[in-house]
């Protein structure tokens, strides 16, 4: 096999994987901390992508700036959504099931709204530098891919530092690991759940923009993204941020390599065959110790 081709697809896989990781960590946190399986997580990512598309198309706003703007906006929107929809269902007996049904409906609503506004045609984010590429020896990196990768890396690092270094971030982890003790020492679970949910949705938005820099997207793309989200979280371990990030990279590399060497129709088979293997042999993820 061609060493250059292997290396090139390895690098693309890592770039792709970093974006999966950014999309995945929020999904993992809402699942772990709140026991909410947020089916519309990918749809919010897609909303970010479409917003960035329109901002670029009509106002010439660069996707990097759009990502920076979408984070606080989605954060506020998600706080409202939490109070309105998510908080009431946390009283349900089976939160996981109730949350899946509710957010599945939400995903369909979002998908239809996006189809109404942006039509069903596939879109691509084409910033001014979209045709440029960084060429290093025999390797070739398109600028939009580098930007998507870089943004994801920044997003994950920021989220990691927030969870590791701030009181609120530590409270998020404490609430996930031992909610009762967290309450006894002053953590307001509703407040922490709202912050977790809002952070997840806003990182989904940023992740969606990053993914849009790498791939084309259409209103129902979030369904495929969602399956990748499940894959990343199951491989990395629910609620495990570092695990999720590493799982994103691993899955990115596997899909990257299989795209290079297998016929196109086999790629998803390999990826989701992997998901099944994991569910059978390591349902708790690859990592023994929960990191972070």
């Amino acid at each position, binding site marked *: 096999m061609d060493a250059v081709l292997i290396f090139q697809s390895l690098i693309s896989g890592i770039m792709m994987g970093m974006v999966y990781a950014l999309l995945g960590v929020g999904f993992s946190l809402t699942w772990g901390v709140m026991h909410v399986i947020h089916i519309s997580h990918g749809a919010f990512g897609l909303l970010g992508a479409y917003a960035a598309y329109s901002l670029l198309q009509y106002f010439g706003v660069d996707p990097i700036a759009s990502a920076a703007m979408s984070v606080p906006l989605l954060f506020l929107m998600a706080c409202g959504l939490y109070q309105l929809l998510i908080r009431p269902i946390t009283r349900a007996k089976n939160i996981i099931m109730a949350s899946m049904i509710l957010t599945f409906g939400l995903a369909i609503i979002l998908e239809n709204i996006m189809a109404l506004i942006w039509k069903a045609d596939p879109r691509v984010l084409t910033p001014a530098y979209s045709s440029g590429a960084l060429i290093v020896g025999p390797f070739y990196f398109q600028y939009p891919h580098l930007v998507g990768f870089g943004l994801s890396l920044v997003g994950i690092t920021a989220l990691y530092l927030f969870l590791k270094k701030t*009181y609120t971030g*530590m*409270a998020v*982890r*404490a609430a996930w*690991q*031992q909610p*009762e*003790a*967290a*309450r*006894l*020492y*002053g*953590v*307001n*679970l509703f407040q922490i759940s709202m912050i977790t949910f809002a952070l997840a949705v806003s990182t989904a938005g940023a992740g969606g923009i990053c993914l849009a820099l790498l791939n084309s997207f259409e209103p129902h793309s979030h369904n495929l993204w969602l399956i990748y989200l499940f894959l990343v979280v199951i491989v990395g371990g629910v609620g495990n941020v570092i695990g999720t990030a590493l799982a994103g990279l691993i899955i990115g590399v596997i899909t990257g390599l299989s795209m290079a060497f297998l016929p196109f129709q086999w790629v998803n088979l390999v990826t989701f065959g992997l998901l099944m293997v994991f569910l059978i042999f390591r349902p708790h993820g690859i990592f023994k*110790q*929960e*990191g*972070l």
Partner: protein
Amino acid sequence: MLSVENLTVCYGQMKALRSVSIEISAGQMVALIGANGSGKTTLLNAISGLVPIEEGRIIWEDQSLNGFPPDKLCRKGIIQVPEGRKLFPSMTVEENLIMGAYHPNVRKKAQESLQKVFSSFPRLADRRRQFAGSLSGGEQQMVAMGRALMAKPRLLMLDEPSLGLSPKAAAEIFEIIRELNKEGITILLVSQEVMQTLAITTYGYVLENGVLVLQGDCKQLQEDPKVKTSYLGM
């Protein structure tokens, strides 16, 4: 300091506590004993605000605490070390301790409190970067108590602090509890180690099936024939 008046707590149809009244004054060290399922943990959780109160009142320094959520209650200095320790297993020892100083009244002094806890429990200082879940039972109990101290307790409620520990580690924990009381922290101690508990506390309450059946000075309780047969096996 704290008085619980005619407290009734229900889990669904079942009454876990029936009209229980206890009184704790500042600086005291009070024991709460009883068999498994007698309602000891429920009483602590009701005082901490974790379980809703059906009837009765909880009064803290002339203020009713009914309906306060736990995250507000701990600001008053009512701190519980829960049964089974309930540490944050995938957080380091240091992070567990820092979480003890989460509530805003004590957060500013967190670093200072941390140094104090490390000097009282030097073993925790050595293990500060280790995951709490990887420690031995005795060390975990120290983390749980250190975490409580970070919250600057005025009333410290300990639920089975010696459960699952070796006799040596248990004795160490009881010694620490006595020290804390000497430093001025009021203590409510729940334990099945009836003999050891009554030896270090001054006043005791005995719960049976959610009802308070006996109370008195610990010296009297130790001599009580009912306590002797039910809890001391004599």
